[in-house]
């Protein structure tokens, strides 16, 4: 006979992301729910960082997850982990939303958010606490970059600006922006070297 719904749910929760995706591809809503539970928080957080508004961030996360559910976005193992892939779908949607909305000034500092994140007395699940801890550590890695490198990386990734737009914005020669992007990425890459699997996939987030 069929496993009970509870046993089935427990089984899905134990699957690795890549195996879970096989069930999502077969339109299993329970598998999709597990996928959302694992990555929904990170997806929403990224969307919020880009669009800077709670409602818009929810819309972006909803569009992104539904496009994954409807297989408009296909998971490609060659491109990294399921999480990185989900977040790249979210990032693309968020940048689209930013451009549709005419875009405000890019949001460059995140001190206000950091205060909110450190709110005391909040009940967090173990997984949630880990996610926030990892985020703080990684933000440290980004913050330890020279300001001019971190700035161009953030403008491109979170602001959706091209290198020539950034050059114009910061009154810099064209080649300089790309050079800073490369130096910055190389430094981040060196700092996270131990979190990367032999096949080049970022592991810990």
């Amino acid at each position, binding site marked *: 006979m*069929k496993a009970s719904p509870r046993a089935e749910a427990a089984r899905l929760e134990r699957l690795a992301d890549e195996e879970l995706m096989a069930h999502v591809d077969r*339109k*299993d*809503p329970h598998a*999709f*729910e597990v996928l*959302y*539970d694992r990555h*929904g*928080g*990170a997806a*929403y*957080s*990224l969307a*919020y*960082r880009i669009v800077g508004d709670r409602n818009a*961030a*929810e819309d972006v*996360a*909803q569009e992104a*997850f*539904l496009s994954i*559910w*409807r297989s408009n976005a296909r998971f490609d193992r060659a*491109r*990294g*982990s399921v999480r*990185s892939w989900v*977040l790249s779908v979210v*990032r693309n949607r968020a940048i689209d939303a930013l451009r549709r909305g005419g875009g405000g000034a890019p949001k460059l500092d*995140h001190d206000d*958010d950091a205060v909110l*994140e450190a709110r005391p007395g909040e009940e967090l699940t173990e997984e949630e606490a880990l*996610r*926030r801890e*990892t*985020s703080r550590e*990684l*933000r440290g*890695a980004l913050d330890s970059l020279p300001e001019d490198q971190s700035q161009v*990386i953030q403008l*491109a*990734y*979170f602001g959706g600006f*091209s*290198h*020539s737009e950034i050059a114009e914005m910061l009154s810099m020669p064209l080649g300089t*922006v*790309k050079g800073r*992007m*490369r130096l910055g*990425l*190389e430094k981040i*890459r060196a700092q*996270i070297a131990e*979190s990367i699997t032999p096949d*080049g*996939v*970022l592991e810990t*987030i």
Partner: protein
Amino acid sequence: MSERPDNDAAGAAGDSVVHGERWNDDLAAYALDALAGEERRIVAEHLEGCEPCRERLQWMLPAVDVLPATVPQRQPAPALKARIMDVVEHEAEPVAEPSRGRPRGLFAGLSLRPALAGIGVFLLIAAAVTGYVLRDGGEEPSSFDAVYTATAEKPASGAHGKLMVDGDAGMLHVADLPPTGDGQVYQAWIQDKGSAGGSVHASSVFVVSEQGVGDVAIPHGLSQARRVMITREPKGGSRHPSENSLLTADME
């Protein structure tokens, strides 16, 4: 493997340094999605034919993948998950209830097959419309167990409709409902029979034509229903109705 004259990476060490100087900055900008149009195309094309640059990009990508994790982590509202899962459960093939019989007769063709499930709610509506036309085209109206009239809660609105029930499934045909704006849909709700009002369940979402006409399949839940109601909801539908019923079919 090199087809372009500048694909000299397989040469001596000095050549590969020169090659790196030519491409590495571009690869970083490419990894960050910071190249536009023509520049982006040139790099993509070069990557096709250059293994060292592909490896270099592959090496660099984790530094980009890590960026989302550097943002302050927030908890989305539970309502977000509810909205997403509502759509997902709606569009999923009904695997969760294998013992329940498929809708009979006319509605058999309306259940979501896996191949269709991915295409979403709007195809379901298209199928519903087709089904309705088929019925007009030849099926006996007597294939329904019952037909109920749907009336507007505000008679001035002029909206009206007909609910055709076939076992646990049904079809609602509506007319003179104003088209929803962008980002909105109509949603059907089923209220159960029950002493204390009866609980309300979310059912299909749908849109109407410019003329205000629409057809929506109700895949299940009608055998225990007291009434079917229609509200206007945000795109994707809601878990709970966000306004009073605009159009109601009383089944008692």
